[in-house]
């Protein structure tokens, strides 16, 4: 009996094969439509499996129904969906040998491997524009402040505007009011986009010319850009409520 079982196990090992399967998903779906996805596998009950299973591409949202059924949703585009898994089925069998002793073996029953992929497409127009920016920060908030100017034009600015850009007492005045001064950059910084940590400031300033003041909430948020006021008094007034005197 023991010999028979061993022979059976070896035979099953020889006949075990790599399983074939196919991911079932519509090749094309209009945008904003949930897409059912499934795969039919023949993994026997009691088998153990190893591997990632579903591999979802970036940008695709997933709702998992069970291990072989999903519903996905994605913006227009083409995506590659993958399913990768190995399984192994082993059963413990106990029997008596000719002398009446119990013999226990781990009997190999089968194994399989899935590595399949498919492509699906979500059709439709471009992604709609982002929602309008949130309302500007409430009056009286504390801000980050940045200046932009052209160094070659510095001498042509009225003296009180020059003062805003070159005076340490002006910077101190901004800090004393609870704001954070970031930098006074030449236009070349806007054009180069460097340093990258200030890229959002440069993007906001790019469409405008002349000496500028850029203001953003201290904790981050929308960068607002204005022409540089005529005096430090006007700068401080602008910082009290950056929406009121926008030009």
């Amino acid at each position, binding site marked *: 009996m023991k010999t028979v079982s061993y022979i059976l196990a070896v035979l099953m090992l020889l006949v075990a094969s790599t399983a074939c399967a196919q991911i079932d998903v519509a090749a094309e779906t209009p945008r904003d439509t949930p897409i059912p996805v499934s795969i039919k596998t023949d993994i026997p009950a009691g088998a153990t499996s190893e591997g990632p299973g579903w591999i979802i591409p970036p940008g695709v949202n997933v709702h998992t129904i069970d291990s072989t059924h999903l519903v996905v949703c994605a913006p227009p585009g083409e995506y590659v969906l993958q399913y990768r898994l190995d399984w192994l089925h082993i059963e413990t069998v106990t029997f008596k040998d000719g002398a009446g002793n119990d013999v226990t073996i781990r009997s190999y029953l089968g194994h399989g491997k899935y590595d399949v992929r498919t492509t699906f497409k979500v059709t439709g127009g471009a992604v709609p524009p982002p929602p309008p920016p949130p309302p500007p920060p409430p009056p009286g908030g504390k801000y980050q402040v940045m200046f932009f100017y052209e*160094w*070659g034009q*510095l*001498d*042509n600015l009225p003296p009180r505007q*020059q*003062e805003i*850009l*070159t*005076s*340490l*007492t*002006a*910077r*101190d005045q901004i800090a004393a009011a609870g704001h954070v*001064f*970031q*930098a*006074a*950059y*030449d236009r*070349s*910084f806007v054009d*180069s*986009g*460097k*340093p990258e940590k200030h890229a959002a400031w440069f993007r906001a300033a790019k469409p405008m010319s002349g000496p500028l003041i850029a203001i953003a909430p201290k904790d981050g948020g929308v960068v607002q850009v204005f022409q540089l006021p005529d005096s430090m008094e006007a700068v401080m007034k602008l910082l009290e409520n950056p929406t009121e005197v926008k030009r």
Partner: protein
Amino acid sequence: MSRLSFNADLPVSTLIDLGLTSEYQEVFQREFVYGSQRALELGLQPVEDVPDILVDFDDFEAVIKECHEKKIFPMYWQQRTWAPDGYRWNQNGLNYCWSWSGVAALLDMLAAEGRPTPQLAPVTAGGAVGWANKGNYLDSFVEWVRNDGIAPAEFVPNMFERNYRQYKEGWKEAAKGFRLRNILDTNRRAGTREMMRQVLSILKLGRPQYAAWNRLSHAMEIIGMLWTPGKWMNITLVIRNSHDETEPIEMYGENATPDEAIGFMSSEPT
């Protein structure tokens, strides 16, 4: 003020004894003529190309007063950022005044821009003279600092180490983050009074000047000006020297007029 104040018209030997300069020729007379093609290629834009910049002689007193009241002169930026009271800026016997003064000007310009001003190691510009312990042209340093930049002190084993093989890996890349972009050149040939006018005109924009005095064979940084009635032109230069002083020094007299003064106007975006 109690800080050291020199009459630049004193004999050079006296100025050497006072520690303003050394006997060694640390800086050479300018290599490229003001406004020449080579100077322009180096980015040295003549200050006379921006005539609006020039301060009227009659306005000297008022302009100087305002630049102190509103803390526009680089001396204030410097004191607030990288060189607070008591800070020693010391080339320590190296013949590198041309780099120590240039790096001081670079830091003051960065301070006015609101950019970081970490301790930089002037010795990392030594490549401009083949890492030898020797003097240099200001123009040569300008070319170096525009292209290669100055590495932070954390990359050198000590501030005076000229063997670049001992620098930490990545020093060259780090130096690129501290470069000069726009420069204004002054015209010494226009005369001493006109030269001082150009110097004040750049200071008035909150920008320092990297300067050389041929008589002293020395380079220093101009960081401000005082209105001092009775002295030549009623002015005194405020200077950052690199001979281990704990504060800026003052220099007056017609011989205080630099032979070369280069305004560091803006840094390279990095």
